[in-house]
């Protein structure tokens, strides 16, 4: 029973982090029409920003407060320098350029932070465990991490459902040309969406850093799983990304315990099953 409870919590925690990373990817793909292979790099940048900013501020949450706006600015710069030139180009060119960005980011990471994994300290006030059952304790930081992810997810959903910017995002998701023809400059919208996606991925990387540390290649691992989330949820769907992330998080957590030999295959089997039943994903439109 305790094992199941722990795996549920681990699965939810992983799924919520994945949602932060994948939501940006699905919006960029769904609205901007760009396959951004460098999206995982923002997660990696977040993890290493956590390392550096925590060393200055002494606290991961202060680092997060500084890091999210910083990642947003980096996202805006990357969109302005590179990504905006890809909107009217085919997917092959998008893949080539964004793959090149991965290489650049990875080289920069190795030059600045080196090749060895770096651990990021948990805040001392959250480093303890609390008892969920008499024989089971669970990290307070992990619970706080989940609460922050839920908070950010709710904030994102509020913005998308209830605000003017959210209306623009939803409209652009279904018909970007009409958004422009109704008087909204899509260049501004696209830059903000891309930067917000980068900031969310970086936030996920920062929050995860004290749990999984920062190491080379961390971005690519997240990128691949994030694409699986986008496919399961349906391109451009935030609701789909949320459900897909939680499904993958839980499948991964339970797979590692109950079918360890097949755990790495499990999420891809889940994706294949969804594609057979709903070829456009759980909330995707044909």
């Amino acid at each position: 029973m305790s094992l199941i409870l722990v795996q549920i919590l681990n699965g939810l925690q992983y799924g919520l982090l994945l949602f932060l990373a994948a939501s940006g990817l699905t919006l960029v793909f769904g609205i901007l029409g760009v396959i951004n292979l460098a999206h995982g790099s923002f997660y990696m940048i977040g993890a290493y920003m956590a390392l550096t900013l925590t060393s200055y501020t002494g606290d991961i949450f202060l680092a997060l407060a500084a890091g999210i706006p910083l990642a947003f600015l980096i996202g805006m710069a990357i969109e302005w320098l590179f990504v905006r030139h890809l909107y009217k180009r085919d997917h092959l060119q998008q893949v080539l350029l964004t793959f090149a960005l991965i290489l650049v980011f990875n080289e920069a990471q190795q030059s600045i932070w080196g090749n060895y994994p770096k651990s990021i300290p948990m805040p001392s006030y959250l480093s303890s465990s609390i008892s969920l059952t008499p024989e089971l304790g669970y990290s307070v930081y992990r619970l706080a991490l989940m609460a922050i992810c839920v908070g950010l997810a709710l904030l994102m959903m509020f913005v998308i459902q209830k605000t003017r910017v959210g209306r623009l995002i939803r409209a652009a998701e279904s018909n970007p040309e009409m958004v422009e023809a109704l008087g909204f400059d899509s260049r501004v919208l696209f830059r903000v969406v891309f930067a917000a996606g980068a900031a969310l991925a970086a936030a996920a990387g920062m929050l995860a850093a004290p749990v999984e540390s920062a190491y080379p290649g961390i971005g690519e691992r997240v990128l691949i799983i994030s694409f699986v989330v986008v496919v399961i949820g349906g391109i451009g769907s935030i609701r789909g990304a949320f459900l897909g992330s939680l499904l993958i998080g839980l499948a991964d957590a339970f797979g590692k315990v109950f079918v360890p030999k097949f755990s790495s295959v499990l999420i891809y089997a889940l994706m294949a099953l969804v594609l057979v039943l709903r070829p456009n994903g759980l909330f995707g439109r044909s």
Partner: protein
Amino acid sequence: MSANSLLEARAIDAFYGASHVLRGVDFRVGRGETVSLLGRNGMGKTTLLRTLMGLVPARGGEIRFDGDDIKGRRPSAVARAGVGFVPEGRGIFPNLSVEENLIFAEREGPGGRRDWTREAIYQLFPRLLERRANWGNQLSGGEQQMLTIGRALMSNPTLLMVDEATEGLAPMVREDIWRTLRLIAERGVAIVVVDKNLDDLKKLCRRHVILVKGEVVFDGPTGELAARDDFVRSQLGL
């Protein structure tokens, strides 16, 4: 550009890839004027509207709207200058409610005009008021068309460009759309309309333009269109 001209395009060329779709088109709309754009399928009517809107780049020539050069401007800038667009296929936002679709486009028109408010749109289309909380994709074809016209009016345009608004609609709904377009025209909004129903177009529009293979072959008032009935019917394949 004459003082009464709202929109004036001269010698416009447009391409889709290597295909030369518009060939030196001259097109003019006066203030408050209603103009029909006629032609068989594939003759360049939709391309002309999209080019005027800035959605298709114009090569050569010039496009002036309300005295300003709008050629090469982004569609958003053209819309803000006072052009409302009702595209072929409607283009509603299916994941926004009826009310959200209208709020989306809510804006002062040129000169700070606010003739068209949500209340005014609901008066024009009472059906939309009943369906205000429904998602765009829950509407019938006729309701979607009403929403597209209402949404375009919410930006208080001085020119409304309507592409195939009655296509695929039931006769009664079609009649509703024509009646509404006549009402909008009476309120001083200039209208360019692409449609296949010649009789309805004659009732709505004072001037008519026929495009054949991307070139204007006729530009004249309703009387002249009626007088040259054989020519018109042969050009339109009627």
